[in-house]
Protein backbone atom coordinates (compact mmCIF):
# COMPACT_ATOMS: atom_id res chain seq x y z
CA UNK A 1 0.00 0.00 0.00
CA UNK A 2 1.49 3.30 -1.08
CA UNK A 3 1.34 6.03 1.59
CA UNK A 4 2.13 8.82 -0.79
CA UNK A 5 2.06 9.17 -4.50
CA UNK A 6 2.62 12.17 -6.71
CA UNK A 7 2.28 12.71 -10.40
CA UNK A 8 5.58 13.59 -12.05
CA UNK A 9 6.03 15.74 -15.15
CA UNK A 10 7.06 12.60 -17.00
CA UNK A 11 3.74 10.95 -16.12
CA UNK A 12 1.78 14.05 -17.10
CA UNK A 13 3.54 14.06 -20.47
CA UNK A 14 1.89 10.74 -21.29
CA UNK A 15 -1.58 12.32 -21.13
CA UNK A 16 -2.93 12.65 -24.64
CA UNK A 17 -0.69 9.97 -26.11
CA UNK A 18 -2.33 7.27 -28.20
CA UNK A 19 -1.54 3.69 -29.10
CA UNK A 20 -0.91 2.60 -32.68
CA UNK A 21 -3.98 1.00 -34.27
CA UNK A 22 -4.50 -2.70 -33.52
CA UNK A 23 -6.90 -5.22 -35.02
CA UNK A 24 -9.73 -6.64 -32.95
CA UNK A 25 -11.74 -9.50 -34.40
CA UNK A 26 -15.41 -10.19 -33.85
CA UNK A 27 -16.08 -13.78 -34.92
CA UNK A 28 -18.91 -16.24 -34.38
CA UNK A 29 -16.62 -18.17 -32.05
CA UNK A 30 -15.60 -15.09 -30.06
CA UNK A 31 -19.19 -13.88 -29.71
CA UNK A 32 -20.34 -17.31 -28.48
CA UNK A 33 -17.38 -17.56 -26.09
CA UNK A 34 -18.15 -14.16 -24.58
CA UNK A 35 -21.89 -14.87 -24.31
CA UNK A 36 -21.12 -18.24 -22.70
CA UNK A 37 -18.65 -16.57 -20.34
CA UNK A 38 -21.34 -14.17 -19.09
CA UNK A 39 -23.97 -16.92 -18.92
CA UNK A 40 -26.37 -15.72 -21.62
CA UNK A 41 -29.17 -18.08 -22.60
CA UNK A 42 -30.58 -15.80 -25.36
CA UNK A 43 -30.15 -17.80 -28.60
CA UNK A 44 -29.53 -14.59 -30.58
CA UNK A 45 -25.93 -14.63 -29.31
CA UNK A 46 -25.36 -18.28 -30.27
CA UNK A 47 -27.50 -19.19 -33.28
CA UNK A 48 -27.08 -17.39 -36.62
CA UNK A 49 -30.72 -18.00 -37.65
CA UNK A 50 -32.02 -16.58 -34.35
CA UNK A 51 -29.73 -13.55 -34.81
CA UNK A 52 -31.07 -12.92 -38.31
CA UNK A 53 -34.67 -13.27 -37.17
CA UNK A 54 -33.91 -10.63 -34.51
CA UNK A 55 -32.66 -8.27 -37.24
CA UNK A 56 -28.88 -8.69 -37.10
CA UNK A 57 -26.50 -9.37 -40.03
CA UNK A 58 -24.92 -12.20 -38.03
CA UNK A 59 -24.33 -13.01 -34.35
CA UNK A 60 -24.32 -9.62 -32.58
CA UNK A 61 -21.57 -8.76 -30.11
CA UNK A 62 -23.21 -8.85 -26.66
CA UNK A 63 -23.33 -5.51 -24.82
CA UNK A 64 -19.92 -4.61 -23.35
CA UNK A 65 -18.09 -6.96 -25.76
CA UNK A 66 -16.07 -5.22 -28.45
CA UNK A 67 -14.09 -7.95 -30.10
CA UNK A 68 -10.89 -9.63 -29.04
CA UNK A 69 -7.50 -8.13 -29.82
CA UNK A 70 -5.47 -10.25 -32.22
CA UNK A 71 -2.86 -11.96 -30.05
CA UNK A 72 0.72 -11.94 -31.29
CA UNK A 73 3.31 -13.51 -28.95
CA UNK A 74 5.81 -10.93 -27.77
CA UNK A 75 3.69 -8.07 -29.08
CA UNK A 76 0.61 -8.65 -26.96
CA UNK A 77 0.10 -8.54 -23.21
CA UNK A 78 0.27 -12.08 -21.77
CA UNK A 79 -2.43 -11.33 -19.19
CA UNK A 80 -4.77 -8.81 -20.78
CA UNK A 81 -4.36 -9.81 -24.45
CA UNK A 82 -4.08 -6.17 -25.52
CA UNK A 83 -1.19 -4.97 -27.68
CA UNK A 84 1.86 -3.79 -25.77
CA UNK A 85 3.67 -1.94 -28.54
CA UNK A 86 3.61 1.83 -28.45
CA UNK A 87 1.00 2.04 -25.69
CA UNK A 88 0.93 5.16 -23.53
CA UNK A 89 3.19 4.22 -20.61
CA UNK A 90 2.97 5.67 -17.12
CA UNK A 91 5.91 4.48 -15.00
CA UNK A 92 4.26 4.56 -11.59
CA UNK A 93 5.74 1.54 -9.80
CA UNK A 94 2.43 0.66 -8.09
CA UNK A 95 1.74 -3.08 -7.96
CA UNK A 96 -1.98 -3.36 -7.18
CA UNK A 97 -4.52 -3.02 -9.97
CA UNK A 98 -8.30 -2.76 -9.87
CA UNK A 99 -10.86 -1.78 -12.48
CA UNK A 100 -12.55 1.55 -11.68
CA UNK A 101 -15.38 1.86 -14.16
CA UNK A 102 -16.36 1.48 -17.79
CA UNK A 103 -18.60 3.40 -20.17
CA UNK A 104 -19.36 2.27 -23.69
CA UNK A 105 -21.15 4.36 -26.26
CA UNK A 106 -22.42 2.56 -29.37
CA UNK A 107 -23.00 4.15 -32.76
CA UNK A 108 -23.72 1.05 -34.86
CA UNK A 109 -24.17 -2.71 -34.54
CA UNK A 110 -21.07 -4.80 -33.99
CA UNK A 111 -21.52 -8.32 -35.37
CA UNK A 112 -19.53 -11.47 -36.04
CA UNK A 113 -17.50 -10.95 -39.19
CA UNK A 114 -16.52 -7.41 -38.26
CA UNK A 115 -12.87 -6.43 -38.06
CA UNK A 116 -12.33 -3.45 -35.83
CA UNK A 117 -9.38 -1.08 -35.78
CA UNK A 118 -8.77 0.08 -32.28
CA UNK A 119 -6.87 3.06 -30.92
CA UNK A 120 -6.54 3.75 -27.22
CA UNK A 121 -5.69 7.15 -25.79
CA UNK A 122 -4.65 8.12 -22.26
CA UNK A 123 -6.93 11.05 -21.44
CA UNK A 124 -6.42 11.63 -17.72
CA UNK A 125 -4.30 10.83 -14.65
CA UNK A 126 -5.51 11.54 -11.16
CA UNK A 127 -4.28 10.76 -7.65
CA UNK A 128 -6.85 9.93 -4.96
CA UNK A 129 -6.71 8.68 -1.39
CA UNK A 130 -8.56 5.58 -0.27
CA UNK A 131 -8.91 4.46 3.36
CA UNK A 132 -8.54 0.84 2.34
CA UNK A 133 -5.93 1.11 -0.42
CA UNK A 134 -3.90 4.22 0.42
CA UNK A 135 -2.70 6.46 -2.39
CA UNK A 136 -4.20 5.48 -5.73
CA UNK A 137 -3.39 6.48 -9.27
CA UNK A 138 -6.45 6.54 -11.50
CA UNK A 139 -5.84 6.42 -15.23
CA UNK A 140 -8.56 7.15 -17.77
CA UNK A 141 -8.29 5.60 -21.20
CA UNK A 142 -10.53 6.34 -24.18
CA UNK A 143 -10.66 3.63 -26.82
CA UNK A 144 -12.15 4.10 -30.27
CA UNK A 145 -13.41 1.15 -32.34
CA UNK A 146 -13.70 1.63 -36.10
CA UNK A 147 -15.12 -1.09 -38.35
CA UNK A 148 -14.00 -2.33 -41.78
CA UNK A 149 -16.18 0.34 -43.48
CA UNK A 150 -14.40 3.16 -41.64
CA UNK A 151 -17.38 3.75 -39.35
CA UNK A 152 -16.72 4.48 -35.67
CA UNK A 153 -18.94 1.86 -34.02
CA UNK A 154 -18.10 2.44 -30.37
CA UNK A 155 -16.10 4.51 -27.93
CA UNK A 156 -15.20 3.04 -24.57
CA UNK A 157 -13.90 5.02 -21.61
CA UNK A 158 -12.34 3.07 -18.76
CA UNK A 159 -10.67 3.82 -15.45
CA UNK A 160 -7.92 1.69 -13.98
CA UNK A 161 -6.92 2.05 -10.34
CA UNK A 162 -3.27 1.42 -9.38
CA UNK A 163 -2.39 1.25 -5.69
Amino acid at each position, binding site marked *: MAKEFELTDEMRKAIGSASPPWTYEVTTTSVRA*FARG*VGYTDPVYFDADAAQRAGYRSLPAPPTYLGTPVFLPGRSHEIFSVPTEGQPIVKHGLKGLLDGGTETEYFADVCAGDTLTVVSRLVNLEVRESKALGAMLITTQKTTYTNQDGEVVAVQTGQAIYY
Partner: protein
Amino acid sequence: MALTWETIREGDVLPELKKRPGVTQLVKYAAGSGDFNPLHHDFQFPQAKQLGSIIVHGRFKYAALGELVSNWLGHAGRIRKISCQYRAMDFPDREFVCRGTVTRKWEERGERLVALAIWTESDDGKKTTPGEAIVALRA
Protein backbone atom coordinates in the same frame (compact mmCIF):
# COMPACT_ATOMS: atom_id res chain seq x y z
CA MET B 1 -44.98 -9.03 -27.62
CA ALA B 2 -42.05 -6.83 -28.41
CA LEU B 3 -41.25 -4.01 -26.02
CA THR B 4 -42.34 -0.58 -27.31
CA TRP B 5 -41.45 2.93 -26.23
CA GLU B 6 -45.14 3.82 -25.78
CA THR B 7 -45.70 1.13 -23.16
CA ILE B 8 -42.57 1.89 -21.11
CA ARG B 9 -43.14 4.05 -18.03
CA GLU B 10 -40.71 5.92 -15.85
CA GLY B 11 -40.33 3.83 -12.69
CA ASP B 12 -40.74 0.51 -14.52
CA VAL B 13 -38.64 -2.22 -12.94
CA LEU B 14 -36.60 -4.54 -15.16
CA PRO B 15 -36.89 -8.29 -14.49
CA GLU B 16 -34.00 -9.06 -12.16
CA LEU B 17 -31.11 -11.26 -13.24
CA LYS B 18 -29.44 -13.45 -10.63
CA LYS B 19 -25.80 -14.44 -10.96
CA ARG B 20 -23.73 -16.77 -8.83
CA PRO B 21 -20.48 -17.21 -10.73
CA GLY B 22 -18.22 -19.97 -9.48
CA VAL B 23 -14.58 -20.34 -10.43
CA THR B 24 -15.48 -22.26 -13.61
CA GLN B 25 -17.81 -19.48 -14.77
CA LEU B 26 -15.07 -16.92 -14.15
CA VAL B 27 -12.63 -19.06 -16.17
CA LYS B 28 -15.18 -19.14 -19.01
CA TYR B 29 -15.46 -15.37 -18.78
CA ALA B 30 -11.66 -15.01 -18.81
CA ALA B 31 -11.51 -17.04 -22.02
CA GLY B 32 -14.44 -15.18 -23.58
CA SER B 33 -13.13 -11.73 -22.75
CA GLY B 34 -9.38 -12.30 -23.03
CA ASP B 35 -8.82 -10.99 -19.48
CA PHE B 36 -6.55 -13.54 -17.80
CA ASN B 37 -5.74 -11.52 -14.68
CA PRO B 38 -4.90 -14.27 -12.11
CA LEU B 39 -6.80 -12.25 -9.50
CA HIS B 40 -9.91 -13.83 -11.03
CA HIS B 41 -8.88 -17.51 -11.05
CA ASP B 42 -5.66 -18.14 -9.04
CA PHE B 43 -6.02 -18.26 -5.25
CA GLN B 44 -2.20 -18.26 -4.94
CA PHE B 45 -1.85 -14.94 -6.80
CA PRO B 46 -0.39 -12.38 -4.32
CA GLN B 47 -3.26 -9.89 -4.65
CA ALA B 48 -5.79 -12.74 -4.15
CA LYS B 49 -3.90 -14.01 -1.08
CA GLN B 50 -3.91 -10.49 0.30
CA LEU B 51 -7.69 -10.22 -0.23
CA GLY B 52 -8.29 -13.77 1.04
CA SER B 53 -9.98 -14.80 -2.21
CA ILE B 54 -10.09 -14.36 -5.92
CA ILE B 55 -12.70 -11.79 -6.97
CA VAL B 56 -15.28 -11.53 -9.73
CA HIS B 57 -14.09 -9.49 -12.72
CA GLY B 58 -15.56 -6.00 -12.60
CA ARG B 59 -16.16 -6.46 -16.30
CA PHE B 60 -18.10 -9.66 -15.62
CA LYS B 61 -20.51 -7.58 -13.57
CA TYR B 62 -20.58 -4.96 -16.34
CA ALA B 63 -21.35 -7.70 -18.86
CA ALA B 64 -24.06 -9.11 -16.55
CA LEU B 65 -25.66 -5.65 -16.46
CA GLY B 66 -25.48 -5.77 -20.27
CA GLU B 67 -27.32 -9.09 -20.16
CA LEU B 68 -29.95 -7.59 -17.83
CA VAL B 69 -30.63 -4.79 -20.30
CA SER B 70 -30.46 -7.08 -23.35
CA ASN B 71 -32.96 -9.54 -21.83
CA TRP B 72 -35.38 -6.72 -21.01
CA LEU B 73 -34.98 -5.02 -24.39
CA GLY B 74 -35.41 -8.30 -26.26
CA HIS B 75 -33.77 -6.79 -29.37
CA ALA B 76 -36.70 -4.35 -29.77
CA GLY B 77 -34.10 -1.59 -29.91
CA ARG B 78 -30.44 -0.93 -29.35
CA ILE B 79 -28.27 -0.02 -26.39
CA ARG B 80 -26.76 3.40 -27.10
CA LYS B 81 -24.72 3.72 -23.94
CA ILE B 82 -23.98 1.55 -20.93
CA SER B 83 -21.72 2.35 -18.02
CA CYS B 84 -20.93 1.27 -14.48
CA GLN B 85 -18.50 1.88 -11.68
CA TYR B 86 -16.83 -0.87 -9.70
CA ARG B 87 -17.39 0.36 -6.14
CA ALA B 88 -16.87 -2.88 -4.23
CA MET B 89 -15.71 -6.42 -4.86
CA ASP B 90 -17.81 -9.52 -5.38
CA PHE B 91 -16.58 -13.02 -4.61
CA PRO B 92 -17.09 -16.38 -6.36
CA ASP B 93 -19.96 -18.67 -5.30
CA ARG B 94 -21.85 -15.72 -3.80
CA GLU B 95 -25.05 -14.52 -5.40
CA PHE B 96 -25.42 -11.03 -6.75
CA VAL B 97 -28.52 -9.68 -8.43
CA CYS B 98 -28.59 -7.35 -11.42
CA ARG B 99 -31.40 -4.82 -11.20
CA GLY B 100 -32.62 -1.87 -13.17
CA THR B 101 -35.34 0.78 -13.31
CA VAL B 102 -36.50 3.20 -15.97
CA THR B 103 -35.49 6.70 -14.91
CA ARG B 104 -36.39 8.77 -17.97
CA LYS B 105 -38.12 8.53 -21.32
CA TRP B 106 -37.78 11.13 -24.07
CA GLU B 107 -37.48 11.79 -27.79
CA GLU B 108 -34.42 13.35 -29.34
CA ARG B 109 -33.61 13.84 -33.04
CA GLY B 110 -36.35 11.42 -33.98
CA GLU B 111 -35.09 8.73 -31.63
CA ARG B 112 -37.24 7.21 -28.90
CA LEU B 113 -34.94 6.94 -25.91
CA VAL B 114 -35.13 5.48 -22.43
CA ALA B 115 -32.62 5.90 -19.60
CA LEU B 116 -32.11 3.20 -17.00
CA ALA B 117 -30.47 3.07 -13.61
CA ILE B 118 -28.77 -0.31 -13.34
CA TRP B 119 -26.78 -1.93 -10.57
CA THR B 120 -25.61 -5.16 -9.04
CA GLU B 121 -26.56 -5.99 -5.48
CA SER B 122 -24.51 -8.44 -3.40
CA ASP B 123 -26.04 -10.93 -0.96
CA ASP B 124 -25.31 -8.50 1.89
CA GLY B 125 -27.43 -5.84 0.17
CA LYS B 126 -24.51 -3.72 -1.04
CA LYS B 127 -24.81 -2.03 -4.44
CA THR B 128 -21.34 -2.93 -5.65
CA THR B 129 -21.68 -1.87 -9.28
CA PRO B 130 -23.99 1.08 -9.99
CA GLY B 131 -24.41 2.23 -13.56
CA GLU B 132 -26.61 3.70 -16.25
CA ALA B 133 -27.82 2.76 -19.68
CA ILE B 134 -29.55 4.54 -22.54
CA VAL B 135 -31.51 2.51 -25.07
CA ALA B 136 -33.23 3.52 -28.31
CA LEU B 137 -36.48 1.72 -29.09
CA ARG B 138 -37.41 0.80 -32.66
CA ALA B 139 -41.12 1.39 -32.09
